[in-house]
């Protein structure tokens, strides 16, 4: 990147290009430099077409500090030579990054943090460096520096600027909250709101690692996620979760009333309240599975009972904040396939709702989440069966939904498991 070539190498290259001798090229450049200098002296600017413009800029006298002694000095006014590249050169030089576009972040200034470098390390997802706050911080640094001459007055101004900062920020917050409903209008991604989040998360690592030249596979990464399922998943994540939680609680209450005579009532309610999110998510959206699976399911002709050959898998190391649902969404392309991961990692995961951070999970590689192969469907069904069994012991009221999902993905699997499951759940799964 930041390599350098020597002047003589440059002269060689120019001589080659212009078919002149190196000596004459060398003297030509010497003359060019002289003329640039005299031009700057006379008119203060020298323009070279297609390259850039050299200019003199007068810097006023300003206070400074001798970095070695810490002594207060005054830097006298002087000229500075600046070079301003023209567009052609700018574009040439920026070519590796030219495909990257600015990205609008959804975060509001409220959750601002003050250090930009932190943000970059944290994938820029969690916090936002406030540009104004950064600027203010800069001021603070300047002001905090020992400044014996103007110490008092500047301290005062520091307080002032602090106050300004506060008011400024609060007004900004207001602005942002007002504007929120319009967010989607300004959205730069043509993908639609549903898959926005996905596309962002895949973009950002690229943006953060500037050593990578502009990535052309960014769109490809996103492409897999633009499925209806993913959209629906996102939507339901955003909107339905609160409703879903309420709905499940109501449904549970009804079931408790209706199934008073049954023996399973015992131990579930505390369980549910402790894990509201992840339980509700897989359960309530389940009915939506119906249509997509009717479309994609191959005719149930094969009666293979062998366990699916696990063609390709990869290792996913769990980060803090991830769930099976989210891993499935990012790695498999469809959040509803999360039991697949659960089924493959029973040795590491006990509760599907709680996965250990930094565990290395085996994650299947799925090329097309919309058209699962027979063996993949069976794998998903197996996963759901495992989830059913776990739920049956921990939260029996909800277990039948997972059993139903087993049947949706693979009716054969449901038949096979028929003997080992609760008959009431089985009839529910079959008649639904």
């Amino acid at each position, binding site marked *: 990147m*930041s390599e350098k070539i020597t002047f003589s190498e440059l002269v060689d290259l120019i001589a080659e290009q212009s078919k002149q001798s190196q000596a004459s090229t060398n003297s*030509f450049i010497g003359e060019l430099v002289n*003329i640039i200098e005299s031009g700057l002296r006379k008119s203060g600017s020298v323009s070279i077409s297609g390259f850039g413009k050299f200019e003199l800029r007068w810097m006023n006298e300003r206070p400074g500090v001798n970095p070695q002694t810490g002594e207060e000095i005054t830097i006298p006014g002087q000229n500075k030579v600046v070079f301003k590249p023209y567009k052609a050169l700018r574009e040439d030089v920026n070519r590796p990054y030219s495909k990257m576009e600015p990205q609008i972040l959804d975060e509001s200034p409220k959750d601002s943090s003050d250090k930009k470098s932190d943000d970059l390390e944290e994938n820029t997802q969690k916090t936002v460096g406030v540009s104004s706050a950064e600027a203010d911080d800069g001021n603070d640094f300047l002001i905090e520096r020992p400044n014996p001459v103007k110490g008092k007055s500047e301290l005062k101004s520091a307080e002032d600027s602090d106050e300004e900062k506060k008011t400024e920020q609060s007004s900004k917050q207001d602005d942002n909250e007002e504007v929120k409903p319009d967010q989607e209008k300004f959205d730069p991604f043509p993908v639609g709101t549903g898959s926005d989040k996905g596309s962002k998360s895949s973009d950002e690592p690229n*943006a953060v690692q500037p050593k990578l030249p502009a990535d052309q596979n960014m769109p490809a990464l996103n492409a897999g996620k633009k499925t209806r399922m993913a959209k629906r998943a996102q939507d339901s994540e955003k909107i339905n979760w609160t409703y879903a939680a309420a709905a499940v609680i109501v449904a549970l209450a009804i079931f408790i009333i209706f199934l008073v005579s049954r023996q399973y009532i015992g131990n579930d309610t505390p369980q549910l309240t402790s894990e509201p999110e992840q339980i509700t998510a897989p359960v309530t959206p389940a009915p939506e599975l119906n249509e997509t699976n009717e479309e994609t399911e191959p005719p149930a002709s094969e009666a293979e009972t062998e366990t699916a050959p696990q063609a390709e898998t990869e290792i996913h190391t769990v980060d803090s904040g991830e769930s099976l649902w989210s891993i499935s969404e990012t790695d498999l392309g469809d959040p509803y396939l999360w039991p697949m991961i659960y089924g493959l990692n029973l040795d590491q995961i006990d509760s599907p709702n709680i996965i250990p951070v930094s565990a290395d999970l085996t994650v299947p590689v799925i090329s097309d989440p919309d058209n699962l192969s027979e063996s993949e469907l069976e794998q998903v069904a197996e996963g759901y069966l495992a989830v059913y069994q776990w739920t049956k012991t921990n939260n029996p009221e909800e277990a039948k939904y997972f059993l139903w999902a087993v049947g949706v993905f693979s009716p054969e699997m449901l038949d096979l498991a028929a003997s080992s499951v609760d008959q009431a759940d089985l009839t529910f799964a079959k008649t639904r």
Partner: protein
Amino acid sequence: MTYRELIDQLADSSGKSKAQTKELLEDAISVLSSQLARGNGVTIPDLGTFGCKVKEVQKVYSPHYKKYMLIPPKRVVEFSPSSVLKDELKFVGKEDE
């Protein structure tokens, strides 16, 4: 000083025709540009150092969208004048003060 004036003076001092000078200058500039585009810096004696620098991702507030934006990394040309040039031109135009 415009490009034309530059070529005129350069032709004068090098004793070549203007057309020839222009061609030479264009060759020199295209080589220099292409080296910069490849990320190679170069120091030209008495003039200064051209270099390439990658600006990291920045987060800025966009008043238009009223939101924060990520500005992608960018590679830019840097020029730092040689000390000879700097000193020569330090007080040009301000000598009378």
